[in-house]
């Protein structure tokens, strides 16, 4: 996946990175994200595999443990920075909405 793809994180990318702030086995990410979002965000197994692979290639996450076929991952410093940037972007969007969508410009 091209690097520019991560300039804006999709909801699924966002929650995978958020979930991996704590070490987590890849196979458990789907359930944890669903739990975190109350079932609102669903990550398919194929998508999860592709995204974990891409994040690892980009250095956003790293493999921390391999137990048989169970592989655990955790977010890296670069991943945390990317997540923080995304949060700032979303926050700015929310502020803009509050200013222009609900305020005097509405």
């Amino acid at each position, binding site marked *: *996946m091209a690097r520019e793809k991560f300039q804006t994180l999709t909801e699924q990318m966002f929650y995978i990175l958020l979930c991996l702030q704590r070490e987590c086995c890849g196979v458990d990410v789907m359930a944890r994200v669903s739990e975190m979002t109350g079932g609102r965000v*669903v990550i*398919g*197994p*194929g*998508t999860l595999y592709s995204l974990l692979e891409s994040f690892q290639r980009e250095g956003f996450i790293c493999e921390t443990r391999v137990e048989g076929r169970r592989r655990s991952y955790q977010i890296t410093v670069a991943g945390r920075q990317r997540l923080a940037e995304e949060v700032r972007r979303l926050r700015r969007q929310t502020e803009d909405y509050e200013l222009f969508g609900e305020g005097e410009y509405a």
Partner: protein
Amino acid sequence: MSRDRKRTLNWYQINDSEAIARHLEWMAERGWLLEKAGSTLWTYRRGEPGPVKYAAACFPEASIFDAAPTPDQETYADYCRAGGWELAAAYGPLQIFRATVPNPTPIETDEAAKLETIRRSMNKTFLLGFTLILASTGLNLWLRAESFRRDPLEFISRSSNLSLTLLLAGMTVYCAAFLLDYFIWLFRSRRAVERGGTCARVHTRARLWMGWALMALCALTLLGYLEDYAVPGTRWILLYAFGGVLLVLAASQVVLRLLKNLACRRRTTRTVFLITVVALSVLYAASLPLLMLGTQRVRFLRMDQEPAYVHTNQTSSGGSCEVDVYRDPLPITLEALGFEVTEEDQCSYRAKTDRSPLATRTVCSQGPAEWSSDLPDLRYEACRIPWGWLRQLCWDLTVAPENSAAHYYGPDYAFPAEPPEGALEARRTENGRRYALLDREGVVLIYGSWDLTQAQVEIIWENARAFR
């Protein structure tokens, strides 16, 4: 095949995920559960008829040369298991899952990631194969076109030529349409995904119909050959010629299975498999002419009927050479043209007719089988072509300077001749030994190994055109 197993042809490609799932669900409703997916055949086993949910996905890292699932592939399958899917079958990057829970998580929930896995899988599998086939069929089609341009009368009067050309054209169109359809799909999907949409719809049904049409063309080609080469005792060679391709494919698959059973590494399996395919193809290609040329009794290549007898000539080196002698009835003979033919000449009279939906062509020839004879050779061919445009095209190509000896091996009909009664146009070669004549029904070509007189040309013309 037992009643508990069933096999179907596979026409699907990797981006047909929805169509594959629909097809498998339809089969499951009828009690057939997918057991094994192969390149051309899918195997089903008998099960309880009922609703079963299927999903097809891509795993680009998987290869048909893997002896067993790779650790990555197993991890991928574990994720899918956690999502409520079990692996039903896999062939290379194509992974087919069966639901184990009523509402499983969709395997792909991100269209961009899905598109990327499909693109990578297609690059690894179908694209190279189809490009090679397209190049091969395109080259063959060009060679067929050249063959038509050089000798249009022979080309259009043989059903085998026409059906093989049709098959090659069909394969070229199929491969070109496949590649074009895929790249258009990729372009439209990329655009849609960038705008937040989903991957574009795949034209599976149209491609399936094209696949069946291609199978029909294969059958038509075989029929065309059987019609042309209907000499008793030769059809088994024809069946070998066509069935040999299937044999090569089947043998390659057996070798691949053996290598996998031996648990060879991916690279080793791929190398040995490719070498085997090339070796088997070369063996098959070499065996055909050997069969045709080596089996003199069968006379496959010339497709002759049995001669009346065989005349043996003695060569200067003390050896011998056999020449077939025929006794077919001819519309005009050397005797009728004023030549004296004796028993010592061992004269052969031969007529052969080829028929196709486009034309009927009879080639007559007479000449001595005895090498010491002074008797000249006579040959004429009369071709009947019902369609005016095709008749004119064949005539133009026959007398075209590009087909003359200067450019090719054909005669140079550069000189206008006096058209006999009923002929629209007549041309001859410079030495006056070859004539080409056109009328409202077709073309007549005359060749004599002496300088033909106008009167002789007119007699041959009258009889040859009446014989058409």
